[in-house]
């Protein structure tokens, strides 16, 4: 990058795109060619530094780039053509926006002279993607191109990370102009705040030191802040002795094997985590955003607590829930100050927390994740538990689709490190997991990458099996096949008199034959006593595997906070009789999602 001759030199727009990718440290991009990006594809063809991963659908490119980004901490990059290429990218862009994933999407556009003329494969890309990106640019002058791409990487990866789009008309790709390197490119006004206010941090530490029933509630912001944030979080937990829970997005920041871990909180969180949230007197929220899946009924959310919120995005603070102390800043930077201040000023008396831990122990004893195994049928919870046991000693990364299997994965697969868990949390995108697994595998070629899937979700981006074969990405698709859109069916049971409107997967493909058709390896398992061997086979095979795990069809995902209820009104598995399930949600709750 210190290559002096690159500082300023003449090149075409297409050459600039490739040069800018190199200068921003990009090794892999995910894309699909088309008319309006052909000049860029021509440049990609003539070099070896940036490897292009050809997907089968632009949505797959986006989710693959998200998986790549989430597992590496670097920006994911996708390249698609104009019109349908860009519109197909909308779902992953919104997905990345809601989960704060750094994603740089380069789109081709019709030549500037044709913009606005309803040309072939024209769409208003910046208009369509404006609400689903952190920022976007239409490049009309080739001399602005390199600076805009550098800025795009900067915006995507700093502050609260997110997706950006750079829309490049075809004539700009052909035009010659001056390339500027990232170091010399002019910076705009965008400067996210990193350092937290020391006064606020001090106030937070004082509040925490006096807490009798404290809790740490962490989220995806800890992952985004980088590995140092997870280190500091662990240090803070050790120093304070506080119990800790996490959102779906934050799993792995604090190890699930750690003694202070309460499990995930929220709609399908553990009893101890939700009860502790409800009864706490001081809540420290770190890099999470009080999402409706977390808070349940807002006016009954942690009613007797003082709340502290660390977030890099000022609009997240006091958005859904009023907090007493809001600390605006990067998680790692703020935690560093917080740990230092705690060390310097607080005489740790962990004994004071004994009654609180005793209370938590009573909640834990409720064993809210218990399930009954069945000798004849594989219970989905059992399948995930076995998958965890048999893969935990490998270098394992997990992605998921969206639905019951996703919640079971979050509950029964345990993560000890950040960046190991890729799931679509905010948008809830079915079809995310397979392409995300492809992206993770490209970034970590020797790792064991498993997409825990459902039989409905997997069919939404199944075409990327072909991409996995092409790029020798030995991803494992572990399908919890219950022949239903399980979460839809569960909600129909809860809310709609068990009328299972269109939630049964009719005309199910034969997944084993499907795997073989793609040139992958297919496994089917129907018996609990055959499961371990089948999973071992899946791990051993050095090519993509589709594992059709036939599980109990009508199992429900518990524990659950029914819509419109508070944290202390959970539905636990042993209490969830058919009648209790049918009456769990009242008329008011029915209107909610």
């Amino acid at each position, binding site marked *: 990058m210190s290559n002096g001759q690159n500082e300023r030199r003449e090149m075409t727009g297409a050459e600039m795109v490739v040069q800018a990718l190199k200068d921003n440290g990009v090794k892999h991009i995910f894309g699909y060619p088309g008319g309006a990006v052909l000049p860029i594809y021509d440049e990609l063809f003539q070099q070896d530094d940036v490897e292009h991963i050809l997907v089968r659908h632009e949505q797959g490119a986006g989710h693959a780039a998200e998986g790549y980004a989430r597992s590496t901490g670097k920006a994911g990059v996708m390249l698609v053509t104009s019109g349908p290429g860009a519109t197909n990218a909308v779902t992953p862009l919104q997905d990345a926006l809601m989960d704060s994933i750094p994603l740089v999407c380069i789109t081709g556009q019709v030549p500037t002279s044709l913009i606005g003329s309803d040309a072939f494969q024209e769409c208003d890309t*910046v*208009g369509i993607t*404006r*609400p689903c990106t*952190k*920022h976007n640019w*239409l490049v009309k002058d080739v001399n602005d191109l390199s600076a805009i791409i550098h800025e795009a990487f900067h*915006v995507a990866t700093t502050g*609260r990370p997110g997706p950006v789009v750079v829309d490049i008309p075809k004539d700009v790709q052909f035009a010659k102009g001056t390339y500027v390197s990232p170091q010399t490119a002019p910076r*705009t*006004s*965008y400067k996210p705040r990193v350092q937290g206010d020391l006064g606020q941090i001090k106030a937070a530490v004082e509040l925490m030191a006096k807490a009798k029933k404290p809790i740490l509630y962490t989220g995806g912001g800890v992952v985004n802040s980088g590995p140092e944030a997870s280190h500091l979080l662990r240090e803070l937990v050790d120093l304070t002795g506080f119990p800790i829970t996490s959102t779906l997005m934050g799993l792995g920041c604090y190890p699930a094997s750690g003694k202070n871990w309460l499990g995930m909180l929220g709609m399908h969180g553990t009893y101890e985590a939700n009860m502790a949230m409800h009864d706490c007197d001081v809540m420290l929220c770190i890099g999470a955003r009080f*999402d*409706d899946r977390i*808070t*349940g*009924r*807002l*006016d009954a959310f942690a009613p007797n607590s003082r709340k502290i919120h660390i977030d890099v*995005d*000022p*609009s997240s*603070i*006091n*958005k*859904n829930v*009023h907090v007493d102390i809001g600390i605006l800043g990067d998680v790692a930077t703020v935690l560093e100050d917080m740990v230092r201040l705690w060390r310097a000023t607080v005489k740790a008396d962990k004994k004071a927390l004994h009654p609180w831990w005793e209370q938590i122990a009573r909640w834990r004893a409720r064993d809210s994740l218990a399930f009954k195994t069945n000798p004849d049928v594989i219970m989905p919870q059992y399948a995930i538990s076995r998958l965890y046991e048999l893969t935990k000693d490998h270098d394992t990364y997990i992605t998921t689709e969206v639905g019951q299997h996703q919640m079971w994965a979050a509950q029964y697969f345990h993560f000890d490190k950040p960046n190991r868990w890729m799931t679509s949390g905010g948008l809830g995108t079915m079809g995310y997991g397979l392409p995300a697994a492809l992206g993770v595998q490209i970034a970590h070629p020797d790792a064991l990458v498993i997409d825990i899937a459902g039989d409905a979700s997997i069919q939404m981006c199944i075409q990327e099996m072909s991409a996995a074969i092409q790029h020798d990405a030995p991803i494992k698709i572990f399908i919890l096949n219950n022949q239903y859109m399980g979460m839809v069916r569960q909600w129909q049971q809860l809310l709609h008199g068990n009328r299972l409107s269109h939630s049964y997967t009719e005309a199910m493909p034969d997944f084993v034959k499907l795997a073989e058709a793609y040139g992958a390896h297919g496994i089917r398992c129907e018996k609990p006593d055959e499961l371990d061997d089948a999973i071992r086979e899946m791990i051993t095979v050095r090519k993509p595997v589709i594992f059709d795990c036939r599980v109990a069809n009508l199992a429900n995902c518990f524990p659950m906070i029914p*819509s*419109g209820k508070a944290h202390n009104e959970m539905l636990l598995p042993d209490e969830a009789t058919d009648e209790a399930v049918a009456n769990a949600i009242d008329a*008011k709750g029915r*209107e*909610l*999602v």
Partner: protein
Amino acid sequence: MNAQLQPTGSAYFMARETEKPETHTLSVLVDNEPGVLARVIGLFSGRGYNIESLTVSETEHETHLSRITIVTRGTPHVLQQIKHQLERIVPVHRVVDLTVRAQELGQERPLERELALVKVAGTGTDRVEALRLADAFRAHVVDANTEHFIFQITGKSSKIDQFIAIMRPLGLVEICRTGVAAMNRGHQGM
């Protein structure tokens, strides 16, 4: 549309909103680049906020900065959200809630002015009356023939509302208003 009574994003919000909605004037300093206005307006429509008045123009030509003045209505909580959401937009440099700032300075409201062009057509006594009232409102005649006047009037929005109401029975033909331009009193900049 009463979406501004609810915080955005959560269908679970069931607590009653006890705060009362207020009208505030925001000043937003942005890079004058294509699409910036669409970003600001898209934010308001996408999140269900209200715009009562919106004025935009380049104010600093050298640095390509534009100033957007938005009059919006919401509870204090929603108004704070609007400010923070605006600050997230990449080409937005600065957002100041002029109403809050005025209150901090011990004033009731910021300085808010509007300009309107008001076309009135008529003959006889209506025409004389229109001219007499325009004079009382310190409106200027900027175009006229024997059948019409175009008045230019500046002042607070309430004054312009009043002027328009008075002109209506006197042969009002059309109105064009600039929307509010605003800044805080005193020597300090935004």
